């Protein structure tokens, strides 16, 4: 991206989705959204104990597109639904709840049916993530553990490992986009990297990105990989984003826990309240959602004076003040470029479009 293009990036609001009766904690785009003219499906989860599915059929111009709430998944979770995630083939939706269960839903002819309920966590489940192949699922929660589940035929799920290691509440789990590597982010201020040990077939922590690795100094709320998986960005209550070099294979670590992943840079000075969510788009934009109601966009700077030969630098290219009337809890890029969804404490979901003009003609 040339610097004159970077300077003209704008985020404009396309749609506001209302319906939830409590804060919206998370949103997730169905991975097959928009491809081959297919409708876009967005799942949202809320403190109102429900999950909503929103559908948008592509139109020639965004001005005439319309979103409808296609389904409300209710009467299953008995407490806040904190996180939702679609399987890679788009056929299943996993929803994680404070009621200590994770529900699996299947789209059966337009109706969503709960086909499984994963139990085991001792208390609130906070995040759920599918592996790139779709054969594994991970969950985490306040009981400090991370659970790995194997997906079996007939919508059966078997727990294959319970990972202990974090000393506090685990806020998020996220699989690597290519390899079977699992990341967990915690209230204990660290990020842990887990892989399956070839010899014992058990899952082990091969690296902890904490204090000694230039890690965060307060709760880590989220992580996101770039599309190739050689970079990861994390967001924290310490008001910074950190970018990590994740190109090396962590399974080949030296075993002393020092691991091959390295801190690349810290993006600081832009946020003044907790950053709850971060997401890296396929075309290289990093979006953040924070407790100051703002959405910010960052991009890698190609400005020679800022970057050194080995360390990249990032700068903020756009800030949307009052993106929501209250805290922004989640930001998620659409699988296709240029669309972003956000969820807020104000009970709404918003759809945004990125416009990038060198000859800016702003509306």
């Amino acid at each position, binding site marked *: 991206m040339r610097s004159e293009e970077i300077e003209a990036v704008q985020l404009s609001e396309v749609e506001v989705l209302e319906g939830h009766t409590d804060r919206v904690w998370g949103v997730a785009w169905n991975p097959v959204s928009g491809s081959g003219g297919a409708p876009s499906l967005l799942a949202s989860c809320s403190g109102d104990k429900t999950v909503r599915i929103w559908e948008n059929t592509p139109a020639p111009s965004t001005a005439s597109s319309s979103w409808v709430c296609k389904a409300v998944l209710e009467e299953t979770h008995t407490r*806040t639904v904190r996180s939702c995630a679609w399987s890679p083939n788009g056929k299943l939706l996993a929803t994680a709840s404070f009621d200590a269960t994770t529900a699996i839903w299947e789209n059966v002819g337009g109706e969503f049916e709960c086909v499984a309920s994963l139990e085991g966590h001792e208390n609130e489940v906070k995040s759920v993530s599918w592996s790139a192949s779709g054969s594994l699922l991970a969950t985490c929660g*306040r009981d400090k553990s991370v659970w790995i589940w194997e997906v079996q035929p007939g919508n059966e799920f078997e727990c294959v490992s319970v990972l202990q290691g974090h000393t506090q*509440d685990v806020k998020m789990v996220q699989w690597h986009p290519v390899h079977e590597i699992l990341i967990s982010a915690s*209230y204990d201020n660290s990020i842990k990297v887990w892989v399956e040990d070839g010899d014992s077939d058990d899952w082990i922590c091969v690296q902890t990105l904490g204090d000694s690795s230039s890690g965060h100094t307060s709760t880590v709320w989220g992580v996101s990989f770039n599309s190739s998986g050689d970079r990861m960005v994390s967001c924290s209550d310490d008001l910074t984003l950190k970018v990590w070099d994740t190109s090396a294979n962590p399974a080949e670590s030296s075993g002393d826990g020092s691991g091959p992943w390295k801190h690349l840079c810290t993006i600081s000075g832009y946020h003044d309240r907790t950053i709850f969510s971060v997401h890296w788009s396929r075309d290289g934009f990093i979006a953040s959602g924070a407790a*100051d*109601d703002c959405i910010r966009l960052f991009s890698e700077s190609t400005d020679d004076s800022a970057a050194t030969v080995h360390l990249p630098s990032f700068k903020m290219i756009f800030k949307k003040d009052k993106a929501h009337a209250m805290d922004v809890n989640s930001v998620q890029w659409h699988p296709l470029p240029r669309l972003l969804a956000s969820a807020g*404490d104000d009970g709404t979901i918003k759809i945004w479009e990125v416009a990038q003009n060198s000859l800016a003609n702003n509306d």
Partner: protein
Amino acid sequence: MTPGLINANPVVHAKKERLVRIDDSTNPNDAFDALDIYDSVRDIRDPEHPYSLEQLSVLSEESVTVDEKLGRILITFTPTVQHCSMAAVIGLCLRVKLMRSFPPHYKVDINVSPGSHAFEDSVNKQLNDKERVAAALENPNLLQLVDECLESNEL
């Protein structure tokens, strides 16, 4: 409730004389200041004793600061003892009272006053973790305790 009270003999202070504030009808925006906020929390009952947080010197007028421009409220409270395990409950009571009394877009931070608690940093972290607060408020027993502490506030 545990059978042994954390602090069996709290020091109780007389209720401070209240200022009668004249309604400022020239301000149309329902603006409020630190004293308005203090008025809304001073009579919250302590979870363990039949006294208000003000009477136990857990709160005082200096406890509240407001930045109206930024939309921020900071409350600093002093637990009666260094190892007070009720600090989290008091923090919750304060947060719920503010949630119910003031506009939702205000950002509220609640801390124990510096040096007043043995685990100051970890208590502050928990009091301000929005997800932990949300989960705690879904616990019916905790919510009932909070409501009891707040009930006495409504005169």
